[in-house]
């Protein structure tokens, strides 16, 4: 044990989007906050999501208020994080024997249109089979028609970091790669945490309230205080393609009738997701070949060419779904619950459980309200209207910034999608316009900035923060270069740079192996050649 414990109003455990949102909210209300995550920001459930801020048309069958709330909050997020969001236009084809015919689908969309203005989305359109094929030539020939629906896509990794960054700007202390090992208790009351930092050193922090925002790990943290959080964790996987596949995002039905989505993003397509009860180790979740086949089978029915495309990797995560007996996984509500464990005799501990990415801001607001009530602190939430970093002013046209800084306009487009109006500041900080990762494309300046200002401690962190090695080459062309640059900024020795590259390649392989096929093997051989000498395996 080293220095004297630090003292805070609130300690938030868990640096996913909800924990980061809570840290931002509370620090903006003037409280001193410590935010801890055992891994990197957004590396758990948040990063494994479908990258969607959606309004929740599925709730129309259950509760229109939830749709309204969810849509309204999506609208807030779109307003405060303009650089991070993409308009995602879904084309929902209707096939023979589908659960819903075209009239029922359009009815649902007509109702959903009433909520769409809340998130700045356009109303639906209805297409005949011929029109649907003109709009989306890859659709199956036997579709009966289609309707469209608009949602928003988002880069969840940057969304989490933007919240962490803003929390820090408002006085919070935020430590990633820092594992909470114990809740400190005094006569039953939780009064702080013991944690082990990235350097292996143990420390203590005192807090008047500890917030457990650890998603599927919530039960573990609550268990440290002797209380239970009852979850029904559900595993989900996505297949990631490093390019666009279709003109529109497309929905499909799996063999067991679940809704599947193929979502087009800036430079990626995500195909998902599965939804299965999970009983295993939350820190070692593998993707199975069966799960990949399940998704491809479902999509092949509406998009027959899907197997002609080369996935670059898979993602997997575990949803912190609230417990419910006698329901199929897909029927479980995505609702959330703020639990004050004082009712179980443990003062000073609050858990936020359940929920989904789309409603993270609202979840953070309600959790922060609960914390403020406990502390007798009166300050309103301002996160719905205060822009996240990079959204304080309009972005400069990409071509103009590119010409002035001497980088490709495409690199500026990507830079702005991560940093918004702060793009030029990022370029200035690194002082090198060399392109490190050509697929993205990513400048050396941005990587230097991420290492110096965005808490990048490994190449996997750099992958999340700035997309290094995220593209078609899966790192073959850039991992070693990135290791040199990050290593130089963080003071790594030659062997540490080597180990960092090796660790990244080994970690990435776990997500890539389940989808290697045909052209994927050609890419893999190239990667193996590039990494020759790392002695992987």
């Amino acid at each position: 044990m080293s220095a004297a414990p630090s003292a805070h109003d609130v300690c938030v455990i868990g640096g996913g989007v909800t924990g980061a949102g809570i840290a931002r909210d509370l620090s903006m209300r003037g409280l001193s906050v410590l935010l801890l995550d055992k891994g990197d920001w957004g590396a758990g459930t948040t990063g494994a999501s479908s990258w969607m801020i959606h309004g929740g048309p599925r709730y129309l069958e259950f509760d229109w208020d939830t749709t309204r709330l969810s849509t309204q909050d999506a609208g807030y997020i779109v307003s405060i994080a303009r650089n991070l969001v993409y308009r995602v236009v879904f084309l929902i084809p209707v096939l023979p024997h589908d659960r819903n015919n075209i009239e029922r689908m359009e009815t649902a969309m007509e109702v959903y249109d009433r909520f769409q203005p809340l998130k700045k989305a356009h109303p639906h359109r209805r297409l005949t089979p011929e029109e649907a094929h003109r709009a989306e030539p890859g659709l199956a020939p036997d579709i009966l028609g289609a309707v469209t629906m608009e949602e928003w896509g988002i880069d969840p990794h940057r969304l989490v970091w933007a919240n962490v960054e803003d929390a820090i700007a408002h006085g919070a202390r935020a430590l990633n790669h820092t594992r909470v090992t114990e809740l400190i208790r005094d006569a039953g009351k939780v009064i702080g945490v013991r944690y082990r930092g990235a350097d292996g050193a143990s420390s203590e922090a005192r807090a008047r309230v500890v917030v457990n925002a650890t998603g599927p790990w919530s039960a573990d943290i609550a268990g440290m205080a002797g209380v239970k959080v009852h979850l029904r964790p559900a595993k989900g996987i996505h297949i990631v393609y490093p390019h666009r596949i279709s003109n529109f995002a497309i929905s499909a039905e799996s063999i067991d009738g679940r809704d599947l989505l193929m979502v087009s993003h800036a430079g990626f397509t995500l195909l998902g997701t599965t939804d299965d009860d999970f009983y295993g180790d939350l820190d070692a979740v593998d993707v199975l070949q069966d799960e990949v086949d399940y998704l491809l089978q479902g999509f092949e029915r509406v998009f027959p060419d899907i197997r002609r495309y080369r996935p670059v990797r898979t993602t997997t995560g575990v949803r912190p779904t609230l417990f419910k007996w006698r329901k199929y996984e897909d029927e479980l509500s995505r609702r959330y619950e703020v639990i004050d464990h004082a009712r179980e005799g443990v003062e000073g501990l609050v858990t936020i459980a359940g929920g989904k990415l789309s409603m993270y801001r609202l979840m953070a607001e309600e959790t922060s309200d609960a914390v403020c009530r406990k502390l007798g602190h009166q300050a309103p939430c301002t996160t719905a209207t205060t822009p996240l970093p990079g959204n304080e002013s309009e972005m400069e046209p990409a071509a103009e910034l590119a010409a002035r800084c001497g980088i490709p306009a495409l690199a500026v487009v990507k830079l702005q999608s991560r940093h918004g109006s702060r793009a030029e500041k990022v370029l200035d900080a690194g002082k090198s316009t060399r392109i490190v990762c050509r697929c993205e494309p990513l400048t050396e300046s941005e990587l230097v900035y991420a290492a110096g200002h965005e808490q990048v401690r490994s190449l996997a962190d750099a992958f999340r923060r700035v997309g290094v090695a995220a593209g078609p080459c899966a790192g073959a062309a850039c991992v070693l270069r990135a290791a040199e640059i990050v290593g130089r900024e963080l003071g790594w020795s030659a062997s540490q740079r080597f180990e960092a590259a090796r660790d990244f390649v080994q970690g990435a392989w776990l997500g890539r192996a389940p989808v290697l096929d045909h052209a994927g093997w050609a890419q893999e051989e190239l990667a193996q050649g590039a990494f020759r000498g790392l002695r992987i395996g």
Partner: protein
Amino acid sequence: MGRADSLAKLAWAYGLHQARRRVSRPKSQLPALLDTYTREGIRPLTAAEYAEHPRLVTCINCGLCAFAATRMGKTRLPDLASSYMRLYARVGDAASDLAAESGAAEPDFAAASAVCPVGLPLADVAAVVRRLTAG
């Protein structure tokens, strides 16, 4: 508001929808759909482009084509397939990267494709990227 209430309201909406369909003559909504999203920088592939599309996105960014042909405009040839071809929206914002200087020769796409380990038809990639960036 419970499930029964929600289902009742959906049933009412369904009745209204069916009545509207009976009395009004539907007109094509495709032009409005494409116009809305093209204005926002989301540019669809044509049917002809789509037929070739799976072959156009197989780039593994090995860089070999750069030895056979260098640049299109200011853009290195491998980047056409590994970066520009990927983008779903906002690709038009990068049009300046592809603008050739007057009198500049077209890259030797055939030579570049000949050395590509995955057989990427780079001339076709360039044509699609040009069309998407031009709008």
